[in-house]
């Protein structure tokens, strides 16, 4: 699969700290990519370098196989920053038109696309309202429309769901999936793990300016599995029960949580119970959630939340 975005050894140092310290990764075309990290990990700096707002000290950004050209590639990127705002006094329709034209759309193109998106997200009646009359969730929706309006190849969303109610969050989520299906690639930056698990194919975790994890969601879960299994039997067994295959680390009536010893396969465990004449009603491996992996890794690297964004 083709890579829409390649980062090679990006570095950005500020006076007192290394905001981004030698980060490389690729984003596949049409994928939904999660960029994760605790507060102050360097996510925003990284995103700003990808969008050409700031320049890396060293390293290169390739967009669609070619070196990133801030002047012309702006049209290929839609960026919804975490710190986002709108001109309060402007009318919503005018505001969308203005930002669309800044992206390089012609007036008529901008108008038809805004109308399309407003209809799609049920915002048609908003056209003549002022931005200051919008609720936070409503302006979030407007921000989203503005970001995707010019049909960018790469869409970057920094915390897109903050402030959205579940209904609107789902609406946006569906749109993200739809856009990915149509061939746009999406980078999704957040620290809300349950959303990542739900949406992303591939994730990168950064902390203290360094990449500490890179892979698909399923492969990462496999990598971090701790050989824990959940088994449900037809009758309860003695908790003290242990052998050289596994340890019982939790019991809830007939359901046992097992820690498998190394060098043992899951079939061995099943055979063990079957041989004892017990009926296995269910058996599955317990995979760690991304949340657990995130907390574990970040604590390992001793992340203390860094001073609030020093540039």
């Amino acid at each position, binding site marked *: 699969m083709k890579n829409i975005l390649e980062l090679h050894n990006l570095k950005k140092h500020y006076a007192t700290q290394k905001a981004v310290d030698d980060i490389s990764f690729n984003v596949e075309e049409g994928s939904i990519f999660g960029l994760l990290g605790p507060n102050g990990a360097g996510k925003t700096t990284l995103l*700003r370098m990808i969008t050409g707002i700031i320049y890396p000290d060293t390293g290169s950004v390739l967009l669609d196989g070619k070196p990133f050209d801030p002047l012309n590639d*702006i049209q290929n*990127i839609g960026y919804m*920053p975490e*710190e*986002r*705002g709108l001109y309060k006094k402007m009318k919503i329709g005018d505001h969308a038109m203005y930002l669309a034209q*800044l992206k390089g759309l012609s007036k008529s193109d901008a108008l038809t696309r805004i109308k399309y998106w407003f209809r799609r997200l049920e915002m048609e009646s908003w056209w003549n309202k002022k931005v200051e009359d919008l609720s936070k969730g409503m302006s979030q929706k407007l921000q989203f429309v503005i970001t995707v309006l010019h049909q960018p190849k790469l869409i970057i969303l920094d915390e897109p769901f903050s402030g959205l109610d579940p209904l609107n969050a789902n609406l946006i989520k569906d749109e993200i999936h739809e856009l990915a299906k149509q061939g746009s690639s999406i980078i999704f930056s957040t620290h809300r793990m349950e959303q990542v698990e739900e949406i992303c194919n591939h994730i990168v975790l950064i902390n203290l300016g360094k990449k500490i994890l890179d892979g698909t969601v399923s492969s990462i879960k496999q990598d971090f599995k701790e050989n824990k299994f959940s088994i449900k039997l037809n009758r309860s067994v003695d908790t003290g029960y242990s052998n050289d295959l596994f340890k019982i680390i939790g019991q809830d009536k007939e359901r046992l949580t097992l820690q498998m010893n190394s060098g043992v396969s899951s079939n061995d465990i099943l055979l063990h119970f079957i041989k004892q004449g017990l009926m296995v009603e269910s058996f599955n491996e317990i995979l760690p959630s991304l949340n657990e992996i995130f907390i574990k890794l970040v604590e390992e690297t001793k992340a203390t939340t860094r001073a*609030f964004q020093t540039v």
Partner: protein
Amino acid sequence: MNKIYLIAQREFLTRVQKKTFLLTTILLPLLIFGFYALMIYFQVKTGNNTKIAIVDKANIFNGKFQQDDEIEYKLVGNALTTPQLNELVELKKFDGYLVIPQSFNPNGKDTLQLSSGKSLGIMTREKIQGKFEKILEQQRLLSLNVSQSELDSIQNGNKIKFANISGQEDTATKVGISYGVGFASAMLIYMLLFIYGSMVMRGVMEEKTSRIAEVIVSSVKPFQLMMGKITGIGAVGILQFIIWIVLVIGLQMILLPILFPELMHHASQVAIQPVGVQAAKQIQDHGGIGAILDGFKQVNIPMIIGCFVFYFLGGYLLYSSMFAAVGSAVNEDPQDAQSLMLPIMMPIIFAIVIMTKAVNEPTSALAVFGSIFPLTSPIVMMARIAYGVPDTVPYWQLGLSAILLIAGFLGTTWIAGKIYRTGILMYGKKITWKEMIKWVVRKN
């Protein structure tokens, strides 16, 4: 370029479409015109408002009394007693009375007393004092057997007529008008620099605090955003300026003759009369409007307006980018803006100080320096230009000043662009000048 235009267009339209724009643009000239009309009104209509009764017991005035513009003297009968005079003043028939006792000796050092109902103004007092001194002086000379014709020939003073070497008249009125025009245009530039400069600063602060800056700089370069804002607001300034000029000139040409027909009549008379003793005397005597209208003809108005527009634009571009840089460095707290603005205010205040010297001594070294140095030239040069190009300001100085101003604003815009680019995306931290200088020096 297209994006700068789009941004400028938005900045321009959002400001021009506001009600406050319409209000200030229309109201300010009306206000200025109102003051102007009021001033003229008082100058024209307030004559003969002070009435002084004179009891000439010594018969110094011989029954004759030359009237003055603003003070009406009236000889009243010698029989009137003090209480009767007091009553006349109380009845507001007169504002005051002056009794010249029979024993009064014009050659002596006797003092006369003027009793008035309410205290008289300083100008009126001086006029009365002057009048009496003049009359008594004549009396004294006549008593020394100086004939009236001899007296006239003495008083026919030989005046020095000031002119420049090319033969053009250089009257005191002209110098006065140059002073006035220079001072006024320099002050106007100073005010406009501040008004539009801080408008730029507030605009940048708004963009930063409302967090729209990052949304926009993902579409355009920060420099384009800054330049768009500066040009948009500059265009508002030019539009406002044009409306003001049109309104003020229009009001003067249409309303003034309607309100004060006698003034215009008077002015045209003054202009028609040949330059001679009579006219000069009249100008001196009337001491004002006629002379001013006449003097304005000697000032190169198109030159001044042209330079004004150039120096306003140059100064605006030079300072507004710095205001933009300051705006980008400010966080939520507007108080920060004040301390950060100080380094920008200093050269402007410095320029005002030089300007007040330059209007008095337009060719002094300080004035020449101030009018060429780009941080002060928009204000100081305007004070000098009113004195005439090329006699007071040689062409080379004007040219050098213009070139340096253009270079200056390119320089400040470049520096400000670097500060702006970093500042606009920084939140939460208070930024110092030291850091800003670091951003400027730092390589990309």
